[in-house]
């Protein structure tokens, strides 16, 4: 093949195209006509056909049929084995329970101290106070009535009495005979009525604000009580474990950090 003397245009490409029968009909006819008078091309074509015949003997082994059988259904199974995906199989309720447990134990280990007193809601963590003391002095919402309740009641009473006094004065002003009033007197009474109305609206608004604040404080107190109760539950349920862990931590921590 190296001693080709034929100068057929684009010879190698045409020869390969003819060899594989991947050639235009017109080009085929032209090349076949050329080969009748070109021994080198005929010879090389025969050699290449021999190479192809040898290549045809090269059979590849059969793939193991079981290797990819039911391939698609096996993919999710293998995907699910990826690290970190195992928890997808755990039910949601179990995940929530585990999260609550971890939260509770973490809070216990951190020696969480939740208090609600005159100073308001107070959450504190640390090892300065042992957890046992927290359990022995639980927050009692019944005995811990805040002093603001009496102040709010007094304010409410004061506002109501003021409101009643204003209503009485307005009634007295409106009971005077209309015919005896001059224009100036009429304008003055209207102004008084408007002022009283404005004051009354302000009083109502203040009363609503006080009521709102009372409700809000009551909710806060109830929530604090629930947090405290939950904490006591966790402490009583996992008390032994917490104490054990606390002892281990105290053992591991240097004395200066306790």
């Amino acid at each position: 093949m190296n001693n080709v003397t034929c100068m057929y245009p684009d010879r190698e490409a045409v020869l390969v195209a003819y060899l594989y029968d991947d050639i235009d009909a017109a080009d085929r006819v032209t090349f076949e006509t050329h080969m009748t008078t070109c021994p080198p091309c005929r010879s090389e074509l025969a050699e290449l056909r021999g190479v192809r015949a040898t290549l045809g003997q090269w059979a590849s082994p059969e793939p193991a049929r079981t290797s990819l059988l039911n391939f698609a259904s096996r993919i999710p199974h293998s995907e699910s084995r990826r690290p970190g995906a195992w928890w997808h199989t755990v039910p949601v309720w179990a995940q929530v329970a585990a999260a609550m447990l971890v939260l509770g134990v973490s809070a216990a280990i951190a020696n969480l101290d939740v208090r609600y007193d005159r100073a308001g809601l107070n959450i504190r963590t640390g090892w300065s106070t042992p957890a046992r003391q927290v359990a022995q002095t639980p927050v009692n919402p019944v005995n811990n009535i805040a002093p603001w309740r009496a102040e709010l009641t007094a304010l409410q009473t004061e506002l109501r009495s003021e409101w009643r006094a204003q209503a009485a004065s307005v009634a007295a002003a409106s009971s005077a005979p209309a015919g005896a009033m001059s224009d100036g007197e009429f304008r003055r009474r209207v102004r008084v009525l408007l002022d009283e109305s404005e004051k009354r609206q302000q009083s109502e608004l203040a009363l609503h604000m006080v009521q709102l604040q009372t409700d809000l404080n009551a909710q806060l107190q109830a929530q604090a009580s629930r947090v405290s109760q939950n904490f006591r539950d966790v402490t009583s349920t996992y008390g032994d474990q917490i104490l054990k862990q606390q002892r281990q931590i105290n053992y591991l921590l240097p004395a200066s950090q306790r």
Partner: protein
Amino acid sequence: MTWSDEELVTRSIGGDADSFNQLVLRWERPIYALAYRQLGREEDARDVCQETFLRAYRALKGFRGQAKFSSWLYRIALNLCRDWMRRQRRTPVVQLPEDIDVMELAAEREPTESIENVIARNDLTRLVEKAMAKLPEEQRTAIILKEYHGMTFQEIADLSGCPLSTVKTRLYQGLAVLRRELGKSDQ
């Protein structure tokens, strides 16, 4: 009813796993053969074949249908073979003739085939594998795709990302090398 590749792809994207299984059954053998002829070792060919279908499955939604599914699959397999060879930094594996186990060959032969024929066929296979391993990767790929997968020059050009004329040149040069290498063994 026989679905076309593209119909099976559409059904697979829609969640029908059995359709993708049909695609695997349809194309497993050609892809495995391609990988085997490129790499020369059965276990590597099996791994590449499996990885090809796994990648195809994962990327199925991205298949736009601009090319044939088979061309897309071949491209994935060829890229994997190329990566494998670069990672291994070596040419395809050719097992030495000394590895031939006559008893094993006898067990594998067709009932009508003599042991002598089996041995001769096996020798020829080793010879071709050895000659093919000497080809540059581009020439070997062109010959494999044309000779064993019946692709047109244009399909090979599209897969290889080169002009049509380059494909023909690679084929001619590859065949020339093979003729020389196979001729050595005749002497």
